[in-house]
């Protein structure tokens, strides 16, 4: 039973991955303009010999199915093409930029948990009272404000007016990146033993992490609230209270532990919206991650680069979902059957 379940999950994931490549190929073929015009100079596009050489090099002279097979083989080999703007393999670019995005996203998740969970707990415990209303307003406004605008307002207030935080960027301008070991500046600066660098990196991380964290905090708070409300109505909580345990112990030790399971699941499933938010946050804060890379690429019509980012994020998404599904199937036998 478990094996059938795992096999079905794996096949579905493989189908989805194949589909992702198909979609990327289709988008690349939607380009209405002459694809050679993007890479060649105007002079060169008129020269039939150069045109033919380029058509041949990228297989544009072959049939569409043949082109797709070639594309698929390249992708499977990890060759996502060459960026028009950086003139480097897209995969190399992504490897360079992805740690900054992961750093920012993890920090944002931390922020959303640090603020969102207590807010949700407060809202559930003081149900329909002031805290609950605050939590509701926070998630309403958080969901309705464009994150690029929130980011600008935050920069205006905390950087320009109050001067509490540094401006956009990942480090102070007079500092240089530490030698790359992991690609994560926070880790690499510590490894190189440069505390000034580390402090600067942390100070630069705070504001974008708060902005991106605020964006998903509403979801965390709302999920915590409803999960906790449900758990608080359970029999074992009543038993705990009946035993005379203090409210703090009942909520913090008994109820919250179980309520956090759905919170973690929901947060995990909101990985996609976290990434979407990261794209815009990175743009506003000049954060050198894959989001900003994608934005620069798309405005310069550098579609190998933007498709590379898109495809890699889709692959990560499918993998994360697969892992979650498998874990669930292993942990909860009921899911395997359905």
């Amino acid at each position, binding site marked *: 039973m478990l094996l059938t379940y795992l096999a079905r999950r794996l096949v579905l994931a493989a189908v989805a991955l194949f589909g992702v490549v198909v979609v990327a190929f289709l988008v690349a073929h939607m380009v209405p303009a002459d694809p050679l015009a993007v890479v060649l100079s105007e002079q060169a596009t008129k020269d039939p010999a150069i045109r033919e050489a380029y058509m041949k090099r990228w297989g544009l002279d072959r049939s569409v199915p043949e082109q797709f097979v070639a594309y698929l083989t390249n992708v499977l080999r990890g060759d996502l093409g060459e960026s028009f703007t950086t003139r480097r393999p897209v995969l190399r670019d992504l490897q360079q930029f992805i740690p900054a995005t992961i750093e920012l996203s993890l920090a944002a998740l931390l922020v959303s948990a640090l603020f969102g969970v207590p807010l949700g707990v407060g809202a559930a415990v003081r149900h329909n009272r002031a805290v609950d209303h605050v939590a509701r307003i926070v998630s309403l406004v958080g*969901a309705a404000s464009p994150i*690029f605008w929130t980011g*600008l307002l935050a920069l205006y207030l905390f950087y320009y007016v109050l001067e509490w935080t540094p401006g956009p960027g990942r480090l102070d301008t007079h500092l240089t990146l530490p030698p790359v070991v992991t690609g994560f500046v926070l880790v690499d600066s510590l490894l190189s033993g440069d505390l000034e660098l580390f402090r600067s990196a942390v100070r630069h991380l705070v504001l974008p992490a708060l902005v991106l964290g605020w964006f998903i905090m509403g979801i965390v708070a709302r999920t915590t609230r409803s999960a906790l409300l449900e758990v608080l109505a359970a029999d074992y909580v009543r038993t705990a209270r009946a035993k005379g345990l203090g409210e703090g112990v009942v909520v913090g030790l008994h109820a919250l532990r179980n309520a956090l399971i759905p919170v973690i699941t929901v947060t995990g499933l909101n990985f996609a919206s976290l990434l979407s938010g990261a794209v815009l946050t990175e743009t*506003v804060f000049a954060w050198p991650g894959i989001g900003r890379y994608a934005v620069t*690429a798309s405005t310069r019509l550098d579609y190998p680069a933007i498709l590379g*980012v898109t495809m890699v*994020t889709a692959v990560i*998404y499918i993998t994360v979902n697969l892992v979650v599904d498998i874990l669930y199937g292993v942990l909860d036998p009921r899911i395997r059957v359905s």
Partner: protein
Amino acid sequence: MADGAQPLAVPGALGGLAVARKAWPRGNTALLVGAVVVGAWLLVAVAAPLLAPQSPVDLDVMNRLEPPSLQHLFGTDEAGRDIFSRILYGARITIPTALGVIAIATLVGGAVGAVAGYAGGRVDEVLMRVVDVVLAFPSILLAMAITAALGLGLRHAMLAMILVWWPEFSRLVRGQVLVVGANDFVLAARALGVPAHRVLLCHVLPNAFPPVVVKSTLDIGNAIILTAALSFIGLGAVPPDPEWGAMIAAGRTKFEYWWVATFPGLAILSVVLGFNFLGDGLQDLLNPRLRRD
């Protein structure tokens, strides 16, 4: 919020009077607030030329980057244009774009989902795998890639958003059709020899409607944000057009001129809140069982 007022004219068409009567005594504040805010913005969009004190595009270099004053309620931008007037005119770009995207995505996605759910078997399997694939992409990245491939501009951004959005409605409508289709009245209609397409159109879909209406309303807000985001990046509306996201982008590097980015953002926030309230209100109205608390 007078409790005596019938909130909206929609219930008759959507959920039946009985539902409306049940929802009514509790006072559906969200629906009222949402309807008022959205209604006001739609009015602004229609009447912008009458309401705007100045032209949204005429340059006035003598009055560049003026702070808010009685003459320029929200100040002026880097070309001396009146930001208040531009925001009013902006309602005619962002709101119809979002409405169009969601309307088409609902229709196309809904049709695919209805067919998948009703036909079942292979058709269902194939269609849903396609849906899964599109939903695996973070929507903004796929929209960016498609817009980049098609070429910049609001029209292409709109098409990209539709291509990204329809699968969400397919998934929802398919689920609804499966739930509604399992009812006895559908079996009865089939047993009476009603043709499949009529069963789907006349018996199943009308009953699958409420959650779709709620999602569409809530998604209009999301589509407004995505439209603004694409324009902010530089993929949507082109500069002289008073699109809200593009206006925010114009204030990006000018911290000392805070009003340039602040007011268009407030416009987005208020209209999106309006649609979110409207959606929540409709949710309460159409499905009292799901009412929170």
